[in-house]
């Protein structure tokens, strides 16, 4: 690896590219070359820096200075001032209370703690060398050489790592089930079908640091005796598919996948499976059905995938973020890991605040941080000077919480963070409108297998449509509540079981707002169009 005195990371995330990051990058390269700096300064494309609101953005290392909203016109000044003369271009420097990248560069801010995201925006995701330079594949080497599979599982169990997909099942235990299950072949499946609205953390990991996932999967394979892995990436995530496939190819070339990995005798390979557009495939058994070539319909549980999974074989299914944690646990030890977070929620959690916040983005914090720290501390609070109203925790399948929850701690003991989405509402938003939209989401995404979900999501949307059009009644609310309860109790899989949860949490919190729609036929936020004629709406 050549030595450069400085690296410039260019955010090449989707949002940045849309705003002209490629032009900025090209100009930067030309400018550096034209000034003869190309032997000492390297321009690196990196995944999204988590500064979705301020792109294009670049970071100059080793100083770790972030420039935001950079245009092609700004480039000569940056090169001239910063790279040649060592003076920061203050007008472009990202604010002091900025998140993400600054921390990665070693800033002292306590709230964000980058474990899984430590390489994001730091390394070139297409370069395995850079991953390795950041201690990449060290964990795999340690596991293969210094640990037995049982040791790995014991370490995982001791770490207290729980699944990050929302359900929070202990990862070590899951691995142990599969390790102990009989099967001529076993599988490791990475669930990268990130479809929960408001979640875009897995995308960031896949685009910015795909090797971390691969390493986690190989370790899982070693621990459980699996031979084959799939990374199920949703079809819409084209960049994730590309980066991950490339990473797999490179890893295979380097002997980190395939036969006899690192000379250990371990045979394991990974394939990317591209989803075809179905949120339900984020449900683990539906995901398996999809890989097998079927409709993405959930399957009967028990038996559970760790013993009866893909093609009926023992299968570990882990979320992207979960697997990305694995190398860090192996390298640093369960002890180190279990000291992060709270008593029952160990480690860090990635959140993706979005909606009415100033800086939507992806932030990693230890479990136990408060909601306020994430929303106000990192995401910059509510944008445009409006007041905070509520946050939909974990997306449409999560719960709606209000202002009184802001100082609650994000951990399983207190406020369950779900998969990490934080959809923030300001005072101008209507709760009925939001939940109606959530209901529409579930109607669109129900697989249609079981009655309560297929028919219930439809009726829920219809009820909300009527309410939002001013033709609801207070009785409707009871009916909807009973419907939500029934869906939660009887649906075949999590989709239907959680489809009414946000609604139920919203009634207790914003009953007045519902009653305004139902009894007074008015929308306090002025969002719903209440003027439709009743007969037309509810024919």
């Amino acid at each position, binding site marked *: 690896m050549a030595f450069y005195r400085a690296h410039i990371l260019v955010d090449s995330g989707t949002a940045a590219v849309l705003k002209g990051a490629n032009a900025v990058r090209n100009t930067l390269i030309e400018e550096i070359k034209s000034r003869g700096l190309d032997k000492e300064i390297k321009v690196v494309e990196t995944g999204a820096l988590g500064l979705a609101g301020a792109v294009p953005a670049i970071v100059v290392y080793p100083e770790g200075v972030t420039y935001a909203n950079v245009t092609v016109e700004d480039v000569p000044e940056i090169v001239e001032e910063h790279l040649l003369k060592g003076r920061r271009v203050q007008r472009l420097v990202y604010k002091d209370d900025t998140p993400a990248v600054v921390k990665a560069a070693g800033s002292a801010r306590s709230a964000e703690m980058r474990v899984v995201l430590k390489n994001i925006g730091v390394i070139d995701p297409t370069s395995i060398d850079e991953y390795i330079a950041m201690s990449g594949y060290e964990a795999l080497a340690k596991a293969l050489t210094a640990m037995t599979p049982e040791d790995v599982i014991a370490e995982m169990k001791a770490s207290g790592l729980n699944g990050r997909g929302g359900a929070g099942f202990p990862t070590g235990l899951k691995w142990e089930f599969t390790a102990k299950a009989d099967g001529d072949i076993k599988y490791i499946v990475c669930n990268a079908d990130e479809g929960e609205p408001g979640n875009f953390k897995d995308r960031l990991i896949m685009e910015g640091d795909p090797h971390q996932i691969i390493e986690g999967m190989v370790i899982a394979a070693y621990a459980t005796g699996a031979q084959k892995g799939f990374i199920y990436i949703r079809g819409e995530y084209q960049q994730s598919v590309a980066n991950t496939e490339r990473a797999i190819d490179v890893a295979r070339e380097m002997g980190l996948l395939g036969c006899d990995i690192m000379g250990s005798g371990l045979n394991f390979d990974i394939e990317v499976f591209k989803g075809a557009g179905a949120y339900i495939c984020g449900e683990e058994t539906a995901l398996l059905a999809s890989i097998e070539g079927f409709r993405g319909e959930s399957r*009967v549980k028990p038996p559970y995938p760790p013993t009866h999974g893909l093609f009926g074989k023992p299968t570990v299914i882990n979320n992207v973020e979960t697997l990305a944690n694995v190398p860090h646990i192996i390298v640093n030890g369960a002890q180190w890991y279990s000291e992060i977070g709270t008593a029952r929620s160990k480690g860090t959690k990635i959140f993706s605040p979005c909606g009415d916040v100033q800086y939507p983005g992806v932030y990693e914090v230890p479990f136990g941080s408060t909601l306020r720290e994430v929303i106000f501390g990192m995401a910059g609070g509510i944008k445009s000077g409006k007041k905070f109203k509520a946050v939909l925790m974990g997306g449409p399948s999560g719960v709606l919480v209000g202002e009184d929850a802001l100082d609650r701690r994000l951990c399983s003991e207190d406020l369950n963070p779900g998969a990490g989405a934080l959809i923030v509402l300001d005072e101008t938003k209507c709760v009925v409108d939001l939940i109606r939209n959530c209901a529409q989401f579930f109607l669109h995404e129900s697989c249609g*297998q079981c009655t*309560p979900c297929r028919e219930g*999501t439809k*009726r829920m949307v219809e009820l909300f449509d009527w309410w939002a059009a001013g033709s609801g009644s207070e009785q409707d609310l009871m009916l909807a509540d009973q419907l939500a309860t029934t869906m939660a109790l009887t649906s075949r899989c999590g989709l239907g079981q959680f489809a009414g949860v946000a609604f139920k949490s919203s009634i207790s919190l914003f009953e007045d707002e519902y009653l305004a729609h139902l009894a007074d036929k008015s929308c306090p936020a002025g969002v719903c169009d209440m003027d439709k004629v009743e007969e037309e709406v509810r024919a």
Partner: protein
Amino acid sequence: MANVNIKINGQDLCVDEGLTVLQAAQQAGIGIPTLCYHADLALDGVCRVCSVEVKGQRALCASCVYPVSEGMEVLTHSPKVRNARKVIVELMLANHPQDCLICARNQNCELQAMARELGVQDVRFTGDRKDIPTDSSSTSVVRDPDKCILCGRCVRTCQDIQSVGALHFSGRGWDTEIVAGLGGDLADAVCVSCGQCINRCPTGALKGNDPSAKIWDAIYDPAKHVIVQTAPAVRASIGEEFGMEPGSRVTRKMVTALRMLGFDKVFDTDFTADLTIMEEGSELIQRVTKGGVLPQITSCSPGWINFIEYYYPELLPHLSSCKSPQQMFGTLTKTYYAEKMGIDPKDIVSVSIMPCVAKKFECDRPEMYSSGYKDVDYVLTTREAAAMMKEAGIDLPSLEDGEYDAPFGITTGAGAIFGNTGGVMEAALRTAYELITGEALDDVNITAVRGTDGIREATIQVGALPVKAAVAHGLATAREVLEGIKSGRYKDYAFIEIMCCPGGCIGGGGQPQPTNEEIRKKRIEGIYAEDGAMELRKSHENPAIKAIYEEFLGEPLSHKSHDLLHTTYTPRSQRTVKSEKPTKVQID
């Protein structure tokens, strides 16, 4: 198998490990309502009506798929459960036409029964209802998707029991539909018309294509001579439509009822079943002695014929060229019978009552005009025949016995057992034995080919000749046999009987609903009892058969027989989108 201790509704139970909660509850006499569950089919757990409360579980569990485990505590009818079930059924009803009173399944509908059981007082959900046109394109099966509750029983039946896969789920979520083939008309899909889907449909979403209006027209038309034939399996099941026990033998009451309906003559398909044995048996002997294609496979089940035409056209030469008894009958009524009675065949309306909906397809085949007319005009299922009786105010169980009309009412026990899986084989062996050996058969009950195992194989000593025979029923098992033929597994077999439907015709797609394993077994017993009670039990001893050969046909496999009683088959393409004209394969 190990036992586990569980508690259901406070009752301590010790049950086999591996049972589902539903099964354990059933054993304890606790009824849990079900809809998508069917004893014949793989478990699916989609309707959620059987949800129960399992202590320690956040959500309710579908008892039909949830296994018991040690220490489990279950509540099957707690308030939580009952409320949830009611909401689920209300959701179904909110998307189901409210036209019970004009529905073919009125009062024999599982959804209707469920609504009553759960005490549904109001369907509180209103709003959109699916509105999909009824598909009457198939002559056999009518689909009314509006009545479909998407339980998937038909899909599982079609895929798993029949290995046809004509029906399947399409679309997603609220837009999920069960469609045929590529979503078009059933007539355009690769459907063998067996109607097993109808048998398992809990509602009125699937039914037979009912020709009864046309039959009423014929009956009331004084110019028409309307005759009816009744298939062997009908007599052991039609009583169920009138509340009788499955397997009740009501042959003669049925004859009375049909006469009351206004049929001019009431005949028995058993007659041509006997004739089939003469023709098919002779064909077998010919193939064995003259080196024809072996094993010979039976050809009396029209769903089976469709199946082999679609999926194994290369094996068509194995099929016997004999028409089915229904079609032999049809041909003879418009030739032999017309001639004998001096009736112009154009005035004869030939109706058959069949346990089958594929027979409706069969009678429409272009090959089935040997008499110069449509040999069989209309096919009624057992259900439709019972409905006509009810419409005429006939209460079958209370009727006096009647007698079939001559000459096509004279039959043997060998004809009757055609209704059971293994029956054709047994009947054929009875005759073949005596024809080949010239000796009387000691025990006419050839139990080796009886039973309900999917495939039964036997070697029967016919004099010095060991005859290897196999019997299969249900198309998934038929597929196994055909694969076996292709792989050479059956190369030294002489004769194979295949019936399209599980249990044979007694389990046919036109039979009373419900039809399940227990009911099939009772009907099978009924049929064997019918055989046992007959004076004549071998086809070749049937005097009317002897007479027809003497008077009309000459001898088995005669030229006339070939013209009237034998047929040809058509390979069919599974590619439905291409509109290639199928080519005919002549079999001889």
